[in-house]
């Protein structure tokens, strides 16, 4: 017994001193984010993780553009600010050294993304900054299924995975510019419905209809009546979608894409097959997981994940693509 007591004591003491070390580490890291014009960026998602891996800490910048991570152990950390809508490019800094008990401050300047910082040209970001996500339980339809209906604010995958494409597709992507995007000819460009735009989901017992404010009028019909895909699918921009409930998750299978659309910036073939899983954990969130397969384009399935936020009171505005008057000159 005395030996066991000794062992126990040793372990206990070791534990104690470890905890004491963590408690003594009052290192903080304050991130301050501004845009290329020097203005603070509020609401920017910030991810911090030890370079060796482990717990991912999440924060979001306040109105002054700052956020403080506290109680950090000494060590090196990697910082990521994911791409924000159409406004800011992704920011990354690796191997930030944190010393014990220090208060470090990091000024970060984000770079403009596609809209070059044009005020008002990012509905998703504006909505996110303007309103809090409503709270409450997820609603249900009269037949007991989760009701996915609502106007939703889309956003980027905050932890995007790069698709593993075959060499021919990478080659094509290299030679493409944004000006070649189908949307410059008023053709659909968001075949996965994963862009940071505003969407409306309309759910009836027989189908779900997803209408985007953008995407050149392309909508997605998801048939819930048990039909399979047609045996001879006529390929379309948005494919043919059928959905079934697995518990509270709507699993949507889409086939029958033609090959003129873009998969992100990549080409794809008519073998494209997309499975989308929708769940509504609470009133304000629509959790969307997408698995993309195309054996002739992708070396392995590509997964995406993003969360749409409810924006009640917002409406999808009419979007008629009519101002692309000069595609030749844009090119």
């Amino acid at each position: 017994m005395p030996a066991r007591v000794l062992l126990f004591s040793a372990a206990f003491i070791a534990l104690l001193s470890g905890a004491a070390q963590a408690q003594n580490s009052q290192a903080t890291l304050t991130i301050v984010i501004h845009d290329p014009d020097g203005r603070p960026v509020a609401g920017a998602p910030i991810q911090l993780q030890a370079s060796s891996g482990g717990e991912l800490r999440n924060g979001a910048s306040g109105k002054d553009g700052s956020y403080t991570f506290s109680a950090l152990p000494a060590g090196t950390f990697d910082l990521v600010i994911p791409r924000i809508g159409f406004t800011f490019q992704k920011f990354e800094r690796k191997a930030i050294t944190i010393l014990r008990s220090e208060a470090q401050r990091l000024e970060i300047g984000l770079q403009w993304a596609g809209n070059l910082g044009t005020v008002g040209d990012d509905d998703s970001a504006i909505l996110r900054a303007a309103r809090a996500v409503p709270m409450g339980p997820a609603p249900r339809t009269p037949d007991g299924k989760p009701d996915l209906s609502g106007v939703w604010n889309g956003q980027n995958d905050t932890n995007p995975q790069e698709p593993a494409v075959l060499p021919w597709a990478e080659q094509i992507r290299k030679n493409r510019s944004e000006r070649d995007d189908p949307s410059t000819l008023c053709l659909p460009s968001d075949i996965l419905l994963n862009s940071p735009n505003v969407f409306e989901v309309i759910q009836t017992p027989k189908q779900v209809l997803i209408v985007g404010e953008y995407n050149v009028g392309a909508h997605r019909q998801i048939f819930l009546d048990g039909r399979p895909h047609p045996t001879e699918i006529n390929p379309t921009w948005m494919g043919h979608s059928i959905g079934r409930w697995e518990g509270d998750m709507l699993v949507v299978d889409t086939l029958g894409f033609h090959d003129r659309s873009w998969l992100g910036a990549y080409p794809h073939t008519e073998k494209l097959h997309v499975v989308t899983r929708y769940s509504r954990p609470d009133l304000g969130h629509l959790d969307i997981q997408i698995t993309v397969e195309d054996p002739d384009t992708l070396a392995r399935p590509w997964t995406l994940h993003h969360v749409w936020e409810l924006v009640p009171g917002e409406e999808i505005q009419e979007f008629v693509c009519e101002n692309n008057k000069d595609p030749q000159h844009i090119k």
Partner: protein
Amino acid sequence: MKKRAISVLGLVFVSAVVVTHAQWLNYPTPGVPRTPDGKPKLDAPAPRTADGHPDLSGVWMHELTPISELRRLFGARIDEAAKTDIPGIETDTQHKYVLNILIDFPDRESMVRPNGERPELRRGGSCAPGRAVAGFPVAGLLSEPIKIVQAPRLTVVLYEVGNDHRQIFTDGRTLPAEVNLPAYFGYSVGRWDGDTFVVQTAGFNDQTPLDAAGHRHSDQLRVVERFRRLDFGHLDIEMTFDDPKVYTRPFTIRVPHNLIADSDIFEMFQQNEKDCAHMQQ
């Protein structure tokens, strides 16, 4: 000019992918009432939604005007136009009201204000490169069907023409006093009056004609539609147009629709539409 207008309208929508309804034809849709030989039972009662209203959901095609009737109304021009008919969008698949929305009014000449806009399709008008917009009500009166998707707080009308859609809000709101963004399809609110779905629309822009005869409308146009699903296979749509800037009085047209069961609308995205304006000359 009118003759040109008829063929122009046909041409403008030809540059799209030629549409057929064969995509999912003969695909029996679950839930459709059927006769003993498996055909859809079009005189079955109209289905209802969980809240007790008739369910207007479905793919609907306006009643076709027989070519003989078109000829009677519009004369030899119809035969001229029919010479260049394209399968799927033949002259007699377009409703008479898309050729002339006032054709059934004997007093139609006096219905248009003399100081209204000149009755010709504006050059380039609704025809920006990349896309010609049919607008309302033309998008639902051409050769292609519409699809109505009815949910508790929102009814959406999907148009095969141009892959456009209209939203009809049924959450109890009234039309806004001012519409900030005039739209091709306006802003619509709907409510039930017994078994009739009454839709009010305002906030149209003035970019699209009401027909191929050159009847225009202003942004003051207000439309009231009355939808009645008579039975499983038949939908009556009555539309009243009120535009005091252009017309001397409101006018009402009635367009019965037939259900296209076991089918669906198709995508229609115009591609390589670089020369629409030249086509309208």
